[in-house]
């Protein structure tokens, strides 16, 4: 019996269906893949709101323009290391981070970005000041891209010092103490809002010590030589003892965290502090009538000269990233002068590329002149010591500030405190030798 033309046997039906499925499946699975956007995870350094907002806004615009699914996390500096440590151990890292990078670089966690470094150098007229020293390693490779310099400056309440009869900023540390003693009115105000605690802002004392001629390690950054500089350290400790006994340091400085010097100055209770201009930007936004009363100066000199190191902010790419080209594209785009001009006008960062030196912002604000000068002339953090892992570890341990606390808090004799510091440094540097 003949079958109607439209009817199919079960076998024919299955055959057709399988064929159709076979042809359609790749098309179906390809559709979401085409729609899927690349994902980029970006950990942004969190400190000054206006600056943070500016960088985050750029990142969001960039993601929209490039059709990228961007996830931004703001991470305060203090929390960065614990967070990235956990992320690396859990094999769940971000693609791009804003950090000092030196710790991650030393442990081989970062992607090589030498190509971006060279392209930026060539396109934008070269790097400013000591930027290459921070980035280029002995073998010529680069693992992080600086986006700004940041340095501690001497900030003074000029109105208070003027009232005490001083018309010029202190040129030496001894002059600073003298002005501080005469300008302070305790308990209403104290001369020097400088921490002597276990927090990293206390490392300014290391700079003071070095301006007395001492240094921690040799030129290679391997062997501790502080023991050879006993005379210089003694002179520095004499100076510190004088500071301590003068009553110019506010009560409580031995447990201050990195915000207390800021808040003391903001509340008008300190004549001098050593701080980056983040504080100035805060004052400009929140207490503008205070701004004209504040002067910004280079560090005072010690008996052996000026030691005024500069710090930096940088971006790097974790080696675990699945989108290395996209991450590099972000690094490149984020250094574009137009974008950086907008960012510098609301941030604490000094220029790192010569093309940025032409920005108006450096001329508009008087305190920015000091930042440009610092960016162009200052030496890297740790100077005259080598900025390496060993130096960083002793810095996070605030070795010099701990020596001072042994004198001030524990009433140790100088010999004992000095010997302990040399021993601690030797053991830290010994780990990296």
């Amino acid at each position, binding site marked *: 019996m003949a079958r109607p033309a439209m009817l199919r046997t079960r076998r024919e039906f299955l055959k057709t269906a399988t064929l159709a499925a076979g042809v359609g499946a790749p098309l179906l699975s390809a559709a979401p893949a085409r729609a899927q956007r690349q994902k980029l995870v970006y950990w942004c350094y969190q400190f000054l709101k206006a600056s943070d907002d500016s960088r985050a806004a750029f990142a969001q615009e960039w993601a929209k323009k490039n059709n990228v699914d961007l996830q931004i996390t703001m991470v305060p500096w203090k929390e960065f*290391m*614990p967070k*990235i*440590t956990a992320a*690396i*151990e859990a094999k769940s890292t971000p693609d791009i981070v804003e950090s000092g990078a030196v*710790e*991650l670089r030393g*442990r*081989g*966690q970062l992607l090589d970005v030498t190509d971006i470094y060279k392209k930026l150098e060539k396109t934008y007229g070269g790097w400013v000041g000591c930027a290459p020293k921070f980035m280029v390693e002995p073998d010529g490779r680069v693992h992080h891209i600086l986006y700004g310099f940041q340095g501690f400056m001497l900030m003074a309440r000029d109105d208070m010092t003027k009232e005490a009869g001083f018309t010029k900023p202190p040129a030496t540390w001894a002059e600073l103490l003298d002005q501080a003693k005469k300008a302070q009115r305790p*308990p209403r105000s104290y001369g020097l809002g400088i921490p002597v*605690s*276990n*927090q990293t802002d206390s490392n300014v004392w290391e700079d003071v010590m070095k301006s007395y001629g001492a240094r921690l390690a040799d030129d290679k950054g391997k062997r501790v030589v502080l023991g050879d500089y006993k005379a210089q350290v003694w002179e520095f400790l004499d100076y510190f003892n004088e500071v301590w006994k003068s009553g110019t340091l*506010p*009560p*409580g*400085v*031995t*447990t201050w*965290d990195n915000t207390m010097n800021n808040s*003391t100055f903001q*509340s008008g*209770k300190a004549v001098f502090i050593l701080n980056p201009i983040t504080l100035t930007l805060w004052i400009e936004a929140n207490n503008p009538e205070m701004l004209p009363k504040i002067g910004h100066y280079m560090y005072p000199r010690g008996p052996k000269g000026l030691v005024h190191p500069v710090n930096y902010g940088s971006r790097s790419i974790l080696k675990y990233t699945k989108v290395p080209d996209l991450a590099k594209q972000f690094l490149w785009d984020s250094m574009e002068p137009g974008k950086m001009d907008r960012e510098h006008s609301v941030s604490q960062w000094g220029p790192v590329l010569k093309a940025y030196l032409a920005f108006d912002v450096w001329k508009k604000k008087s305190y920015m002149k000091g930042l440009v000068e610092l960016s162009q002339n200052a030496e890297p953090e740790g100077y005259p010591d080598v900025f390496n892992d060993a130096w960083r*570890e002793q810095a*996070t*341990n605030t070795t010099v500030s*701990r020596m001072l*606390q*042994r004198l001030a*808090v*524990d009433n140790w004799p100088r010999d004992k405190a000095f010997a*302990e510091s040399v*021993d*601690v440094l030797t*053991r830290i540097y010994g*780990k990296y030798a």
Partner: protein
Amino acid sequence: MATVERSVAVATPAPRVAQRWWPLSPARREALQGMGLLVPTMLLLLGLVLYPFLYAIWLGFTDKAVGSPGTFVGLKNYRYVIASPQFSAALVNTVVFTVAAVAIKFVLGMGVAVVLNQQIRGRNFFRAFLLMPWVMPAFVVYLVWRWLFDPLSGLINYALLDLGLLTRPIPFLSERSTAMASVIMAHVWRAFPFFAISFLAGMQTISQELYDAAQVDGASRWRQFRHITLPSLYHIIGVVVMLSTIWTANAFEPIYLLTGGGPSDATVVYTLLAYLMGMVNLHLGEAAAVSTLFLPLLLALILAVTALLHRKAH
């Protein structure tokens, strides 16, 4: 008997033993089944507790740093940690902080529990109110205490100066003589409600008849407390003190937020030292060595407390 003789004679196959595929007694079988049911839980516990514990001990013998697998370095980390000036300070401070804080929490908690066990007006309100420090986030509590202790703008100094009791502010957190006591005070304030609430719960289970009988016999309030209340609470005290010893010895926030271990090393405890070595300096092996070195001390503290209370209870 005849049947037996006949079966031998015709050499029929031996009678089949009953089909016992399980050659165990019912009691043993039940025990094995129980153990089988426990296996998943045991595996879970082994995975979640024992493995990390043993791994942490292993880490102490390696140069494990962030992002690197680490290699065996023997006792190098232990030698480094023990020779560190902060280690001896952390050892003493951990014991002082734990013993003092637990003792004060115990006395304070017991006192408050006794008061709230009385028929006083607003008792329920005070019982609920008591829990406030315990339920507040530690971060908030310790930042508030830091502000209270602040010598420049803190409430305590402000009040004492205003009342004329001081001529210059006291840096409570920044002098060796007062720093540890201040940290203990802040910690006790936050943690004593746990003692008070636990003791109060225990007191409410003690039969009123015991107190009535003691009163008839002329026992004073103190004797009633000593011979009825306290012995009835021994088991609760044991659990509470043991838990609190563990928690206090492992406390991190009060030190980190109030003093950061300073001034000098006056308040550094082992948890902070492990944090600095592991999370700040990125030497996970050293951090693991610190934790492992403190393990015997913590165990000794816990065993001492448990043994003491166990003996009292019996």
